């Protein structure tokens, strides 16, 4: 298992992204697969900072990557506010520019780019997000 722990600050997103890129490459994903995993993790971490921690924080984000035979499993932990994933509306694809309303894309990207996405919220322990990407072939 590969692990990185960083304070919940936006400046750490690049460090997390490089870490995820290396792990995904080692796991055998191609360029688009690596980019998909990077995007899902980046969006998840941005949401933790923005919503769980309510802005940049010294509270940490813990990222664990587990490379198995058939998949890469990403586990993200934080100690911020929990949320109800089902309460986040799926972004509507509008045909008129002026109708587009900002928000909700991060969670949508995570679900679109990863094969499995699970949230667990445990009082006193924290929030755990597990995302799994199956290996091609």
């Amino acid at each position: 298992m590969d692990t990185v722990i960083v304070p919940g600050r936006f400046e750490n997103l690049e460090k997390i992204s490089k870490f995820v890129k290396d792990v995904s490459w080692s796991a055998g994903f191609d360029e688009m697969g690596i980019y998909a995993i990077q995007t899902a993790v980046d969006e998840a971490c941005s949401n933790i900072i923005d919503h769980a921690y309510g802005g940049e924080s010294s509270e940490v984000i813990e990222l664990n990557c587990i490379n198995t035979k058939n998949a890469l499993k990403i586990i993200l932990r934080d100690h911020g506010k929990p949320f109800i994933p089902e309460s986040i509306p799926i972004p509507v694809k509008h045909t008129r520019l002026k109708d587009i309303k900002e928000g909700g894309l991060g969670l949508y990207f995570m679900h679109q780019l990863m094969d499995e996405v699970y949230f667990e919220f445990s009082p006193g322990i924290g929030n755990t997000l597990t995302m799994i990407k199956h290996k091609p072939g």
Partner: protein
Amino acid sequence: MEITTSQYKRCDLIKITGRIDSSTAPQLAQKFNAINEEGRFKFVCDMSEVEYISSSGLWVLINAQKTSKRYNRGEVVLACVPTKIKSALDLAGFVPFFKFFDDIVSAVGNF
């Protein structure tokens, strides 16, 4: 992320290099706003050196497009967009809201 701008007769060229994420997207928004405040609303974004764009970066582009197109005073067009970046725009459903050009000369010539 680095941003360089060039003012042409009919538009402004914004070249973005590196990552457009939650950390850096506000800088890009500020750049659009600063040029808007000078009364200019026609932009070519050179995306050739963009390594990554998150949803926060995509919102900056959409908001810049909204501002530019209001009152038909301008437009944001995208040039030299890498496949990965185009796929992010596509996943968000934003591709129909931009013109895409394969080179800077054609993009500038659009205005």
